[in-house]
């Protein structure tokens, strides 16, 4: 099975072309946040250098968030359009889970973090169990102090990766020696690992309905929801 894997959830851009478990080509950039300009050329380049045509692909695997709203929209728009237009499979994977795949430790909890500004984070808790990764606490947008309350009772080591700089000091105070700060290279997503993981997952049934995993309403919608808690939000877009 030929797989195209894409992660542009944050500043790094990572794209890979795989043949099942085998990596054919991968590009990872951390120098620019120009996903709009770079994503499609990188895809074109890697598929071509893998000696494949777009029509040779069987599956697209995309890290669908959380992350930068524009970043996850670039990846998901490209992924769902390629899957839809070629009539091939689409698998969506949490961008936090994709980062957790970089830490292959059976005896620790893995805590990938994206900075959500003002002491907020997009985060989740994962662990390996007999070679497969499991979710311990689901991905969410949460304030640091609330997150620490959720995780401080686990007795195991907690490895933080990703945007750790803004949180390390406070997390160290709460978790002491339980806290392990991951290597900075492990904080960069690998599309090859994403593709490998995506190979094992069931494809999405309704590709057209796929949207990014924002994990957060826009401010306008959140304010509206406070005032209209029971409103049905399904019919806001109409085909005319």
């Amino acid at each position, binding site marked *: 099975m030929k797989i195209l894997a894409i992660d542009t959830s944050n500043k790094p851009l990572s794209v890979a072309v795989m043949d099942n478990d085998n990596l054919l080509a991968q590009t990872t950039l951390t120098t620019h946040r120009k996903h709009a300009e770079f*994503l499609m050329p990188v895809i074109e380049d890697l598929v071509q250098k893998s000696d494949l045509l*777009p029509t040779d692909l069987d599956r697209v695997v995309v890290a669908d968030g959380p992350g930068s709203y524009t970043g996850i929209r670039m990846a*998901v728009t*490209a992924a*769902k359009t390629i899957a839809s237009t070629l009539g091939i499979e689409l698998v969506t994977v949490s961008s936090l889970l994709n980062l957790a795949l970089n830490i292959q430790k059976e005896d620790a909890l893995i805590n990938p973090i994206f900075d959500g500004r003002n002491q907020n984070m997009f985060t989740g808790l994962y662990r390996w169990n007999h070679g497969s990764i499991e979710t311990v606490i689901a991905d969410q947008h949460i304030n640091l102090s609330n997150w620490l309350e959720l995780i401080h009772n686990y007795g195991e080591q907690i490895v933080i990766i990703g945007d750790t700089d803004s949180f390390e000091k406070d997390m160290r105070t709460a978790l002491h020696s339980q806290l392990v700060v991951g290597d900075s290279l492990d904080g960069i997503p690998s599309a090859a690992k994403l593709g490998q993981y995506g190979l094992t997952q069931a494809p999405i049934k309704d590709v057209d309905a796929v949207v990014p995993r924002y994990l957060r309403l826009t401010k306008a919608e959140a304010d*509206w929801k406070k005032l209209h808690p029971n409103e049905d939000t399904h*019919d806001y877009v109409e085909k*005319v």
Partner: protein
Amino acid sequence: MARDLVLSFETSCDETSVAVIENGNQILSNIVATQIKSHQRFGGVVPEVASRHHIEQITGCINDALKEADVTYDDLTSVAVTYGPGLVGALLIGVTAAKAVAWAHHLPLVPVNHLAGHIYAARLVEPIEFPAMALVVSGGHTELVYMPEENKFEIIGETRDDAAGEAYDKIGRVLGINYPAGKPVDELAHKGQDTFKFPRAMDSDDNFDFSFSGLKSAFINTVHHADQINETLSREDLAASFQQAVVDVLADKTDRALKEFPVKQLILAGGVAANKGLRERLTKNLAAFKDTKLELVPLSLCGDNAAMIGAAGEMLYRHGARADATLNADPGLEFDWLADEIK
């Protein structure tokens, strides 16, 4: 003759639209998913919400457009997409999807200026004859564009502050009318009289520029002043007075432009081109220009839609316009100004 089929994309603001256009002038399909109801919650377009709706809709619209046109990817000649002006996050959904389709099916990608699309909507009715002039009036733009020949666009005048459609939405709010206010204000205006005589900014200035922010302020001040002294003003007369001021300025500047640049066709395009008052007035004024034909873009094609992008895209394709996979959104994209010293 082989069919020339453009698959076109438009996502610059609050409509996700995909169309299939044959030979540049025939609409085989024109799918438009509008987000108006969503943004009405907030009284105007919220960019992040717009982007989120576009990504929900985009592939469904592509499939619907192909199905309704009864064509497959193999039948297509090119892919055309609006890359500006507009909301950057919204534009990027159409641009990314169009690039993905073009790559997947080895199709040439044609970048289209949204305003060229509005103007070329006219050719979906009949061929554009050059030289031509376009008055483009929408929620984001108000400009007079001179077109000496096909694929040449030269701005000769534009708004210096608010776009006309923006002014409608702002005064609509004061009248308790939700966005988009153009149509309800137009309807109210037809029931009232121009009793307030609001200012016609720049109307007699020796240029082709517009300004609507002073008119908007005069309107708002009039209503606020009446509120303070507990006086109730006629909403119909307020709407009629506002609309008359807008239409006067647009029509007078257009007259002036037609005198300086004799053209074979005047095209009225853009969302505000659906305004009945403006259509009536230009129709009347054009009687004085015997050699100029008025082309009113049909109401169904005045708002944002991908059919117009396909109509412009086919023309641009013939002129060699191509983009590669690096194409980015250009939210501030503009036509050039006419290259002489008329300003």
